[in-house]
């Protein structure tokens, strides 16, 4: 059964369709890759899913209920949690506090939030910097920290926007392992990435967007072999 249903969603900016009648479902426990060249509308779609951009047309359903018109915080409390492409951490509070913000906002008590935050910090191997302000962390550590905030309370759907971009391979491996484990436990993901080897490895299914529209939605290997997808990425005709 679909947890997340994207139905004919459209978004235009000054007459340009950034997202053009996009429809697809994400089923419970699925790990779906969302791929496409730069400017294809992936992040715009994620911004609409998380309530940061108003939906221009169509509908977005979570467990059958529309998310239209809900503020980002209400969407988050319904279980749609996101990670940003450009890391957004709370720079002047500690790494631990960054996680506690998410935990407390999602209804955890102080003790439970602290327990889960410490577990996550250890799992993501950034427990040694938990007392440092997020602004003092390296770019990769900040990325891991933001990644962790999505899992203080297991989300209905985790929207991960380019988690593997511009991070050290060690950290990439930590995040990939984490995603793999949580997916095996039944966590639902929509993963935006340009890292094709990782998408191929992690995501059984992928949706490819180009110029705002879905051009392929199939098992990942089939999507990556799709001539339209190859053309979109390479900007020419597929061999």
């Amino acid at each position, binding site marked *: 059964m679909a947890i997340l249903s994207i139905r004919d969603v459209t978004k235009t900016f000054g007459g340009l369709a950034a997202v053009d009648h996009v429809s697809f479902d994400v089923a419970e426990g699925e790990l779906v890759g969302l791929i496409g060249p730069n400017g294809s509308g992936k992040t715009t779609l994620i911004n609409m899913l998380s309530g940061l951009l108003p939906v221009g047309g169509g509908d977005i359903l979570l467990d059958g209920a529309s998310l239209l018109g809900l503020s980002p*915080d209400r969407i*988050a409390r319904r279980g749609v*949690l996101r990670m940003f492409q450009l890391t957004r951490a709370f*720079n002047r509070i500690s790494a*631990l506090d960054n996680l506690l913000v998410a935990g407390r906002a999602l209804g955890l008590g102080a003790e439970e939030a602290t327990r889960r935050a410490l577990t996550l910090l250890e799992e993501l191997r950034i427990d040694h910097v938990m007392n440092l302000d997020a602004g003092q962390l390296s770019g990769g550590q900040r990325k891991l920290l933001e990644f962790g905030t999505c899992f203080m309370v297991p989300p209905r759907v985790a929207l991960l926007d380019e988690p593997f971009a511009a991070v050290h391979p060690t950290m990439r491996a930590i995040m990939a392992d984490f995603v793999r484990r949580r997916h095996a436990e039944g966590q639902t993901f929509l993963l935006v990435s340009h890292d094709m080897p990782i998408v191929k490895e992690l995501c059984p299914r992928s949706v490819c967007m180009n110029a705002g529209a879905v051009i392929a939605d199939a098992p990942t290997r089939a999507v990556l072999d799709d001539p339209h997808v190859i053309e979109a990425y390479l900007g020419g005709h597929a061999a």
Partner: protein
Amino acid sequence: MIDNSETRANREFAASLGLLALVALAPLVVANEYWLGVLVVCMYFALQAAGWNLLAGYTGQMSLAPAAFAMIGAYGTGMMAYRYELPFWIGIPTGILASALLGWVLGRVALKLSGPYLGLTTLSFAEIARLIIGNSYDITRGDLGLSVPGIFDARLAYYYLFLAVLVAVQAGIFLTLKSKAGLFLQAIRDDEIAAASRGVPVVRWKVAAFVASSAICGLAGALYAHFAQLISPELGLIMQTGFVISMTVIGGMGTLVGPILGAFLVYLGSEAVRDFGGWHLIVFALLVIVVARFFRDGLWGLVRLAWTRRRAPVPQPAVGTR
């Protein structure tokens, strides 16, 4: 060992209580009525600075209206006494309520604003409030000023009243910082969009910060009205707001100790160089520039840095994971 915003708040609250304990002992050595009065005014500014710091230092909402809210609080109680001959225990809550209510209105108006737009909106609000009070001669006596009855005969009684209120306000802010509210306010300060995306009800907490900050400034103004026994729209001058901001920045913005430390140092310093006329303002303006340029965390930040260095090497940003 965990060292986060909660443990920092514990340390800063303890330090601010230490500072206020010194203030409590000051009358043992300061018997002079004039200087007792100066210390009371220090506490009036410390209350405003604490209120402004909650909004600007902890929530990141750069309001330019703390003095206007103090003026509204002062006129709230002043009008109750002057027009309706009501006692201070009705007047002071009225002043606080009026400030909180207008803080709520300003908070709702300013919800979507930030940076210079927020600053200009709050400044415009402050000027409108001051001009309305200043020009409503029939109701407020305008620039002629309003007489307000005192509460006590002895200046020392006012001294300890202000001190008790300042301790209570500090305790209130401390408890707020230790709760999830403190985490949420600081998250909003650092990144509103990220806070909302992690489930923080940003609108609710921003408005709450405006209301709480305005109420504290209103409380300061209401108490001051009964202490000074004469109030005028000059209480809400932008220069007064400048004073409050300078005190907080010099003391250490976004810390519990900073506003109190800054209020006492700046106001006592201003009294010390009062004989030099307008020059003392230049000295403080330069001090603000130096602190803003070189010591962003203010004097309390310097104390914290020295303490950290004494205890252990400053932690360096780690390059990789362990």
